């Protein structure tokens, strides 16, 4: 704890406080919430001051600074503050008050109407934003109309059997087409003034391209909005550019960071982006002696990226520790910690941290669905049931709550009910990928591959980084014996998680099934490399052996078979199907090359496997003994 750290805290406090205020004013409620939470999670300045009373003198300057910032605000009231901050004229400010009230009353069209012809970037943002929300609401309503109409048709036999569910899902699938079209949809009141994403985008681009000074919060918000629009249109590259511009103008908009993250689909992109951002933020701040607040945001972003794409775990933990030091009471950070444990399949630790988070902030439902996943995997039904009850007590109509309840039912093997709750979660939050993926798993449980495929597809449509969904797709197609498709999906999941043995293994077996043994071997080898203890992984070894045999490379094949058998001896008597089969193969091989003694020994060791195998081993043993004699 030194002076620079204290100054950082002061700086952060000031900046977060302002951002929470600003973002709230411009109706970015989630970002504002995040900033405010972070602000409250900051380590206590008082405490530090007490601990380091010597340095109080040094602290004076930034603190005084802050006071001088704040004084006019408190004295002249918010009115002055806003006009000073955002450069609105009196008339504009009055207009803002009206628009803001209308926005809060969810009268978006009116809000947009009153703000027509505003040149102030903030007001323009508010106008376009409310137009977007109005558009979103209307398109959603029209889509839902179609849905209810169609579901009304087969209402009669809704839950009668699985086929119906499948049909319904197929319809969902068709709506997927609708949803991709949704971005192009025009909302029109019939008075020739249609609203669509492209129209909004055009207006925004016209404004941004008109050579207006590119600074200030208003511009940052406009760039953010443009990114959102581009994302709607499915042009990630332009969206990334917009988000990046927004972030450089105003780093404290957390939703903007997450949106930026959501634009990335491949790990390599994430690395490049990080590098870029590093350069950007570090270069700008080289002359500063202490880490300033902006860089803290980058650190948060690094954590988020790591959650999605993984990377260097040590670096991650370093960042996390640092941030936890700055924000000891920030639930978001703790959740990140828990999530990383979850991703690394360290369930007990993750569970422990989640327990802490709940203690710290009991009514925070964010990410608790992951917690329920952990409880599901670790098979703690009573705790899961409690969590489900508790969450539904807090808010029944949250996607997270529904996911928790769905997990609960799934744990109780009530898959239909579970699916129902997942569906409910999705109608509350369309972009909840994990719900789609989990619903896919439920359908797999119900042996309904087609429905499962639909679910997985929806999941990857929304979030192409969800390797579980890709993997699920691969598996579902494998069940349907469509290996060409299956292979492609495994490739996808493998590209996302190239350090996961399971991915390579699945890919390899798929290559094997389509008859491409060479590539299968490559993949198995890769899987073996990634295996925790490669000597012990008999399944992989055996598969490799078989593949080499198929390529008539008997020598290598024999090598792998021997390795396989060696496991039995090296790890005291660990016998399984593969070792038995390898043993049998070796026995057969030695028999062929007339090494009857070896063959005999090997054949004797076959005690595991199907009756035929054992029978065959016995025959070989008998034959060997006969020959040896």
């Amino acid at each position, binding site marked *: 704890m030194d002076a620079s750290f204290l100054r950082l805290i002061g700086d952060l406090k000031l900046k977060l406080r302002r951002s929470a205020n600003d973002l709230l004013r411009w109706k970015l409620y989630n970002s504002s919430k995040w900033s405010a939470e972070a602000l409250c999670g900051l380590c206590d300045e008082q405490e530090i001051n007490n601990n380091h009373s010597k340095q109080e003198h040094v602290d004076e300057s930034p603190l005084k600074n802050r006071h001088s910032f704040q004084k006019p605000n408190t004295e002249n009231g918010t009115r002055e503050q806003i006009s000073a901050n955002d450069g609105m004229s009196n008339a504009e400010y009055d207009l803002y008050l009206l628009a803001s009230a209308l926005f809060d009353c969810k009268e978006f069209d009116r809000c947009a109407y009153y703000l027509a012809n505003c040149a102030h970037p903030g007001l323009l943002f508010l106008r376009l934003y409310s137009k977007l929300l109005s558009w979103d609401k209307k398109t959603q309503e029209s889509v839902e109309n179609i849905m209810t109409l169609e579901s009304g048709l087969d209402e009669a036999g809704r839950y009668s059997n699985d086929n119906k569910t499948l049909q319904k899902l197929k319809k969902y699938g068709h709506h997927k087409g609708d949803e991709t079209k949704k971005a192009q949809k025009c909302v*029109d009141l019939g008075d*020739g003034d249609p609203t669509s994403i492209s129209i909004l985008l055009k207006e925004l681009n016209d404004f941004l391209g008109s050579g207006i000074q590119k600074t200030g919060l208003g511009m940052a918000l406009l760039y953010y909005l443009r990114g959102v629009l581009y994302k709607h249109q499915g042009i990630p590259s332009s969206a990334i550019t917009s988000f990046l511009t927004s972030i450089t103008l105003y780093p404290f908009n957390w939703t903007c960071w997450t949106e930026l993250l959501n634009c990335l689909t491949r790990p390599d992109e994430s690395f490049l982006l990080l590098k870029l951002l590093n350069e950007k933020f570090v270069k700008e701040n080289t002359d500063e002696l202490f880490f300033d607040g902006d860089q803290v945001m980058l650190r948060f972003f690094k954590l988020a990226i790591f959650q999605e794409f993984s990377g260097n775990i040590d670096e991650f933990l370093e960042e996390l520790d640092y941030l936890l030091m700055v924000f000891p009471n920030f639930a978001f950070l703790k959740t990140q910690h828990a999530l990383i444990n979850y991703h690394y399949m360290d369930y007990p630790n993750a569970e422990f941290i989640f327990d802490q988070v709940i203690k710290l902030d009991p009514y925070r439902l964010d990410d608790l669905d992951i917690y329920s996943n952990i409880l599901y995997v670790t098979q703690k039904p009573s705790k899961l049931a409690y969590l489900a009850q508790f969450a539904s007590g807090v808010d029944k109509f949250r996607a997270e709550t529904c996911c928790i309840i769905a997990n609960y039912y799934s744990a109780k093997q009530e898959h239909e009910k579970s699916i129902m709750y997942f569906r409910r979660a999705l109608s509350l939050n369309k972009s909840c990928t994990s719900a789609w993926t989990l619903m896919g798993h439920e359908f797999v449980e119900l042996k309904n591959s087609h429905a499962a495929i639909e679910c997985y597809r929806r999941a990857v449509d929304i979030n192409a980084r969800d390797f579980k969904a890709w993997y699920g797709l691969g598996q579902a197609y494998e069940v349907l014996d469509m290996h060409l498709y299956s292979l492609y999906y495994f*490739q996808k999941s493998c590209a996302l998680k190239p350090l996961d043995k399971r991915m390579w293994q699945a890919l390899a077996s798929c290559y094997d099934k389509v008859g491409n043994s060479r590539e299968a071997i490559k993949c198995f080898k890769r899987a073996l490399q990634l295996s925790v203890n490669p000597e012990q992984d008999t399944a992989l070894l055996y598969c490799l052996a078989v593949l080499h045999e198929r390529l008539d490379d008997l020598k290598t094949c024999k090598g792998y078979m021997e390795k396989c058998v060696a496991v039995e001896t090296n790890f005291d008597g660990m016998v399984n199907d593969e070792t038995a089969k390898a043993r049998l193969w070796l026995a057969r091989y030695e028999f062929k090359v007339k090494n009857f003694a070896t063959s005999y020994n090997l054949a004797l060791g076959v005690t595991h496997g199907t009756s035929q195998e054992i029978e065959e081993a016995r025959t070989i043993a008998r034959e060997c003994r006969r020959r040896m004699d």
Partner: protein
Amino acid sequence: MSHGNTPAQQNPILNFSPHVPGQSHENLQHHGQQLGIRQASGASAQSTAQTPHHTAAYSPLVQKVQNSATLATPAPHVDNGSAAGLLASMTKNGLLGAGAPSTLRKVSGFRDFGSSRVGSTAFEDAKNDAYQASVPAVLSIAELPAAEKLRLWRHDALMQHHYRTAEYIGDKVYSMTHDPNDAFWLAQVYYNTGAYIRAVELLSHDNLDASSVMCRYLTALCQVKLKKYEEALDTVGETNPFKDANGDHPKNVDGGIKLVSSMCFLRGKIYCALNSFEKAKEAFKEAVQVDIKNFEAFDELISKSLLTPADEWQFLASLDFTELDDNEDLIKNLYISRLSKFLNLEEVEKAHAFLIDEYKLGDNIDVIRSKCDMLFTQCKFSACMKLCEYALERDELSLAILPTYISCLYEQGGKNKLFLISHKLAEHFPKSAVTWFSVGTYYMTINKVAEARKYFSKASIIDPSFGQAWIGFAHTYAVEGEHEQAVSAYATASRFFPGTHLPNLFLGMQYLLMDSLPLAEEYFILAYEVCPYDPLLLNEMGVMYFKKGDYLKAKKYLKKAWEAIKTLCSESKSWVSIHTNLAHTYRKLGHNERAVKCFKLVLETAGRDTDTLCALGFVYLRMNKIEKAIDALHCSLAINPSNQASQDLLKQALEINVTMLLDDDHPLLVSSNIQEKGARLLNRKREGEFRASQIAKKLKQGQESSDEEVADLMDVE
């Protein structure tokens, strides 16, 4: 009193308005009965009327206006000009000043009544006393003979639309004098009451129509009204009998429209009704050439699309505006603003700027209309709509703006507004073609094609020269896929509107749909000759050559279309279709990179479309970018699962995917290598690197450039 400053006073014609109440007492009483209300209501008017110095010009109405104006604001009318001028122009004097006197003069001029010149004619001539000084400039009503007083009475009644009075008195005068002039004026009365047949009979009675050009003109006008076109043509003659061999036309003296021009105009109208558009065009052109002031003839030429866009400009350039003296620039620019907006846009804009700066006509309906037309031609529908609405705020049912507005609403899908405006129109103008065009358009927007057809046909029956209605009518067939009928409807339209390329374009499109490429080509070429600037046409030509397999030509035309549409907003449908077509052409020509760029651009601007994605997948497949191909095909199938082409291609791609070697260049291994090396970023072989560098570049510039790809497109060619 500042009478001298009123606009009415500035015009010498007004001094001699023939129907002015005299100053003699009996006359005053006489008129007092007739105009009782006027005089009773205007005590001050009467008092001024009684002052001894007044000329005949001071008709009570004018005085009232002047008084009120001068009483209200003592400043000269330049300041209160709008009010005073407006009111003054509403008086009968204003009316007369514009029309009647010049006709009168012509009657006298051509027939040369000599000393028998009487009454109104005499009044008329007085203003030209430079060469026909027979009557003193200032005369007193009281000095006139009795018949003359009756004539004044008749005239005043006519001007105030007391037709029965006018007829009654006129008939008496005619019976008393048997003057051909009185016959003419009686015929005018008949014409105004709509009794055309009586007018014709009266005029042909004494062979008046043979002896007087004016009478002949009126006869022909009545015959046109009676739809006796052949007879009317006989009356006016098939060609201009007054045509000057040298081509120069005598300067008009009174500032009105020359009768010769009116005759030419009438001839044009007759030819139009007889469906001989070539002759009609010549007649109208002649009418304008003879007298530039004949705006109606000019308007007919433009609004009925008798001239091609290039011809329009050429014709305007050939016109001589010098006759208009100080109004030369004003009228010239006004005319320019009416011309086709397909070419010479700068000049149109210059004209707009001139009219707005010099004459403050920014809010004038015709300037706005011209701007609307310009926006409409450029497919900027929403801006056009806003401008139309601005104009309609002041003149809600302006028939000049409405057709454009209705078309805009159709383009923008404003069915609710269309509904309202259609109802309003049907209420107020049930006999106007625009009304039924609007109703038809409304039914088109809500996809009730049969009803739409009914109303379009109604509109075109009411006004056969209303182009939009014809085309709309033909469209209804095209929408339903009834090519034969559509073709015949378009063909009719193309006969009616030789100056517009649209019917031929649509004909070509129909033939294109029916796969008769040679015919389509023929029609497209016809359309191209008329208007080589329309991107839609160029696009269709590109498609046609594409279908013919002539990809180089297709590329040429699509490029042209692309050039033409560059300035337009990108969300318009034509923009998208041109880019898609261009992309397909590149695909066929094997320019893979360019095709990919184009397809991507289309996808980005127009959103995802199954066929575009399928084509993109195909190109990627050909470029051996298997992963991208599969992704694109997947997207395509996600939108439409039954897309056979995508399914086949996807299968092919997946099969190739299986056989691809997992060497170091395989994307899978590359990404896994990258991941292994963590954030150190040593390995960046893939296009991800390219993309990020792009981002970096953009970041450094601190701005976005979504147009970059377009610019790239330009570079390649």
